């Protein structure tokens, strides 16, 4: 067996409480099975998600990141997701500019009603990250430059 086949990525999901977290609950109450590779962190709102937490997760060994919250106009706090979206545009741009692989950081709007979408988003993410293989570009930075 090759490592590609056995590689199970660890994915950290940063989700808002009102839409995606509730949506993921709905996936559960609907008993829709999906890949178990994802670890969900609950935030009140996507607006609260600090890009540094994403960075830390990648540095610590996350193979992929999934950031998800309410669809535009559906934010429980009305505009948190809009603010988040703008921040992510810039964050992605800077990651790209510094040469990091953007395919490891995924974004999705998943509403409280989209239990099935949550399962699908997780499955797609896991599949794609599994194809990319283990993330090393962040973790290897720990060692570089230390005597």
């Amino acid at each position, binding site marked *: 067996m090759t490592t590609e086949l056995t590689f199970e990525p660890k994915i950290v999901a940063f989700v808002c409480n009102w839409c995606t977290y509730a949506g993921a609950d709905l996936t559960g109450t609907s008993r829709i099975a999906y890949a178990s590779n994802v670890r969900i962190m609950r935030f009140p709102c996507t607006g609260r998600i600090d890009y540094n937490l994403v960075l830390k997760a990648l540095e*610590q060994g996350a193979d992929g990141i999934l950031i998800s919250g309410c669809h535009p106009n559906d934010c429980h706090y009305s505009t948190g997701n809009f603010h988040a979206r703008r921040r992510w545009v810039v964050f992605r741009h800077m990651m790209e500019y510094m040469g990091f692989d953007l395919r490891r950081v995924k974004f999705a709007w998943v509403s409280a009603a989209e239990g099935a979408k949550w399962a699908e988003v997780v499955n797609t993410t896991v599949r794609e990250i599994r194809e990319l293989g283990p993330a090393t570009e962040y973790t290897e930075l*720990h060692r570089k*430059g*230390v*005597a």
Partner: protein
Amino acid sequence: MSTHHGVLSHQNLLKLLSGITAGGMELYAPRKTGQKVFFDHITDVREIAFDPLPTTESPKALLFPRVERLLSFARDGESMRVDDRCADLMPRRVLFGTRPCDAVALQRLAEFFADGIEDMFVGKRREQLVVISLSCAVADADCFCTSAGSGPGDGTGSDILLTASGGERYDMEVLTDRGREVLATFAGLWDEGSPADTSGYLAVVEPLPALAGFGAKLAGAFASTVWKDASLRCLGCGACAYVCPLCSCFDIEDEGTPSKGSRLRCWDSCGFSLFTLHTSGHNPRPTQTERWRQRVMHKFSYMPARFGHAGCVGCGRCSRACPADMNLREQITMLDAGIALQSAP
């Protein structure tokens, strides 16, 4: 041992350095990127920069790296496994291309870290480091080594000192056993020589008269008002400290998680506003005035009081690196005059 003399050509010097890398010893030498020159691990001697002036960053990282793992730890059930790194092999390294001021600085730095409770890391590295220096044929307006206890042809701290003596040729002084050991392998590349007067090939360094007696003057100048104006344009960055061959302030920080990680030592600078900040919010050195004073006092008053020499070898790097043109030569002259003026009856 007594000094051994020899001569070798530039061509053979390169061959010798190539031989060092081929022989498995790590070679560190200046390498140029853009306008800046850094000591770097060299695998191809053609990459070595033979710039006449001191490098941008000093060679101190060879003894005292920017980041160094002091220990690593990993949770092991109920206890903690800690690796103290004593078993780590500190490989023999050859440092080529230091200027005499750098070599003096390396020696002083090693002395500092050995004082009192010895620092194993610096000590071991110093033991394993072979320093091949190049005498200075050129000095710039920021140099003042001759007034700071060194000189363009000073062999202190070097194992081998090379002086370019015209025509792609170097006069070589082998100053230590370590130097001789390294050379032994490359017997064919150099010729025996005799003591020669190299002074004609050495740079003329503008003296800094203010430095004489400066330490004594500083001792009484802590409360002087000269510091405020002198430090006004200082931005409070650490550029001067980080390029300095003798600045040795550091920080100790843990990285990782409580289950697995390392304790790291990293460079720090007394010029940073948070360097002395207490958790209570109290800061004994609240503004750049006090921090600049500390830098100058530490180098020219406290260090001499403790170690008999200044914490400065006059290499001029800080003056070249400063984004606000805090020129150390000029500062010393100005402070000296200012203090003298204030203490005049």
